C-alpha cells in the first residue's frame, strides 16, 4: 500500500531529474535512470519570464495561500465558535443553509463569480482570497463547532475573569485549544489556494508578475498552449518544488490532523 501511494510520486521525482521533456517511460528500466540532471530545476529557477520568474511566483503563491489560510482559520473558528457557544436565532436553519450552499458546483458559479468580481474591481489577490475562503471555512466551521463543544467553557471564562474580552478570549484561548481544527483548516485552505489553477488564472492573468506558481508552472512548461510540446520534466520539477512546502506542512501537522476529526466520532 505504501508502494501504491509513493510510486507515482517517485515517478514525478524521476521525471523532474530527467533532461528529456517526457512524461511516460516505456520500459521498466527507465524507472532507474542512469543519470540525474538538474537542468529542469536550473531552468525553472533561473529563467526570467518577461517580468515573472518561478521563485517570484512561488513567493506569490505562498503569500496568497498563507493569507487565505489565515482568513479561513479566522472565519471557520469564528463561525464554529458562534455556532457552539453563542446565541444565534435560527441557528440550525442557518447552519444547514450555509452548509448546503457549499454544494454548488464550480461550473455554476465560475462565470458569474468572474463577472461580479470584475464589476467590483476585485480581480486581484483580495478577490481571490474572498473567493477561496468560504468553501473551506464552512466545512471547517462544522468541525470547529464540534471541537469547541467539547472544550469546557471554563477555559474561556477564567480568561474573561482575568481581564480578556470575549473576542480576545476567542483569539488567545479558543483558537489555541482547538488547534487540531486550526491546523486542519490551515492545511485545507492553504493547499486549496496554493494549488488552484482555474480561478487564479481567471483572476490574475493580466500581469505576469502577479501570477501564482501554478499559472507560472503551466506557462513555463508549455501546458497553456498546445502549440508547443509540453516540457514535462520542467513541470515535474516545478511541482516537486511546489510540493515541498506542502508536504512539509502536512507532515509537520500530522499529529494535529489525526486528531482533528476525532470530535466527529466523539460520544455525544
Amino acid at each position, binding site marked *: *500500500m*505504501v508502494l501504491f*501511494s509513493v510510486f*507515482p*510520486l517517485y*515517478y*514525478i521525482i524521476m521525471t523532474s531529474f530527467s533532461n528529456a521533456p517526457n*512524461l511516460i517511460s516505456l520500459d*521498466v528500466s527507465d*524507472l532507474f535512470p542512469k543519470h540525474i540532471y538538474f537542468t529542469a530545476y536550473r531552468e525553472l529557477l533561473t529563467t526570467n519570464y518577461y517580468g515573472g520568474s518561478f521563485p517570484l511566483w512561488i513567493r506569490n503563491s505562498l503569500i496568497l495561500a498563507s493569507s487565505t489560510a489565515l482568513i479561513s482559520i479566522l*472565519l471557520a473558528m*469564528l*463561525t464554529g*465558535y*458562534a*455556532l457552539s*457557544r*453563542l*446565541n*444565534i436565532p435560527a*441557528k*440550525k436553519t442557518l*447552519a444547514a443553509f450555509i452548509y*448546503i*450552499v457549499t*454544494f*454548488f*458546483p464550480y*461550473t*455554476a*458559479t465560475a*462565470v*458569474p463569480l468572474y463577472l*461580479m468580481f470584475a464589476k467590483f474591481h476585485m480581480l486581484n489577490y483580495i478577490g481571490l482570497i*474572498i*473567493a477561496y*475562503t*468560504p*468553501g473551506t*471555512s464552512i466545512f471547517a466551521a462544522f468541525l470547529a*463547532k*464540534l471541537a469547541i*463543544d467539547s472544550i469546557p467553557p471554563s477555559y474561556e471564562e477564567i480568561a474573561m475573569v482575568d481581564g480578556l474580552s*470575549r473576542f480576545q478570549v476567542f483569539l488567545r484561548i479558543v483558537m489555541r485549544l482547538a488547534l487540531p481544527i486550526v491546523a486542519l483548516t490551515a492545511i485545507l485552505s492553504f493547499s486549496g489556494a496554493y*494549488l488552484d489553477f482555474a480561478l487564479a488564472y481567471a483572476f490574475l492573468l493580466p500581469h505576469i508578475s502577479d501570477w501564482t506558481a*501554478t499559472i507560472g508552472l503551466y506557462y513555463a512548461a508549455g501546458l497553456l498552449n498546445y502549440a508547443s510540446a509540453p516540457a514535462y520534466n520542467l513541470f515535474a520539477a516545478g*511541482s516537486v518544488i511546489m510540493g515541498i512546502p*506542502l*508536504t512539509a*506542512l502536512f507532515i509537520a501537522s*500530522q*499529529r494535529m*490532523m489525526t486528531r*482533528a*476529526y*476525532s*470530535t*466527529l*466520532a466523539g*460520544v455525544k
Partner: protein
Amino acid sequence: MTSSKNGKNEDNGFLYILPILILTIFVFILPLVYALYISFTNMNLFHLFNYNIVGLKNYAIIFECGYFWELIKNTLIWTLGSLVTMMSLGFLLALILNQRDLKGKSIFYAFLILPWAFPGFISLLIWQGLWVDPYGMMNKLILPMLHLPRINSLISTTDAWIELILTNDWLSFPYFMTVFYSSLQSIPHELYDIAELDGAGTLTKFFRITLPSLKRTIAFVFITSFVFTWNNFYPIFILTGGGPGISTETFIVYAYQEAFDYSNFALASAWSVISTIFVIILGLIVIKYTHILDSFS
C-alpha cells in the same frame, strides 16, 4: 453548550457569524442566482449582451437531448464508485494504523498521506501516463505482477471506469484514512473490552462497535465527499475525456464543456442548476436520514 442555553451572553452571536454569511452570499448565492437567471435566457457567445429570456427552453433542451439519463447514470457510477472504494480503502488503512502494536506508525502515515500532500495536477498527468496500455507502468508492471488483466480505457467502458475510480482513490484515500484514523482513536477501548468479555470476535466488534461509533463520521465525510466527487471533474477530464463515447462523461464535465467549449452560458447554467438541484436533494436526503446536522441545533 451550557452558555448558549443560558442565552444571556453580552455579545451578539450574530456578529460572529456575519462575515461568513456575507462571504457565502457573495461567493455562492449571488453567482448561483445569476446562473439561475442566465439559465432562463439565451446568453451565449452570440448573445453575450443582447440576450433574451427564453423561459424553460434550456431545460427542455437538456431533457430532450437524450443524454440526460446517461449522464445521471455516469455521475452516479463515478460518485458512488469512487466514494465506496475510497472510503473502504481509507477505512481499512485507518484500521491497520490503529492497531495498538504497530511499529513505525507515524512513518507509515507520513508516506500514506503523501498523495494528498502533493500537487494533484501533476499526479493526474502521471497517472495518465501510468495507465497507457501497454506501456504505462500500471499495465506493464503492476497489474501483471498481481496477475490481473490489463486495463485499456480506450476500448472498454468498464476499464475506463476502473481507471478513473482507481486514480481517484489514489488521490483521495489519504483524506479518508486520516478522518477515520482520527475517529477510531477516539473510541474508548473499554467498549471493545466489554464486548470481548462477552465473546465478540473481531468481526462482531467491527460491525457492532466500530461501525456504529463512526456513524456520524462516516455520514459527515460521506456527504461532503459525495458533493465534492459529484462536482469534481478533473480526473475524468484528464484521463478519459468522458470517453469512450460519452460513457464516462458526467454532469459537470458536460456542463463545463457546454460553458467553455461551446460558450453557451445559458445552457451551461441550466446544466449546473439541474446538477445543483440534484446534489441538494440527495444531500438533504442524506442529512435527514443520518441526522448529521442534529448536533448543530
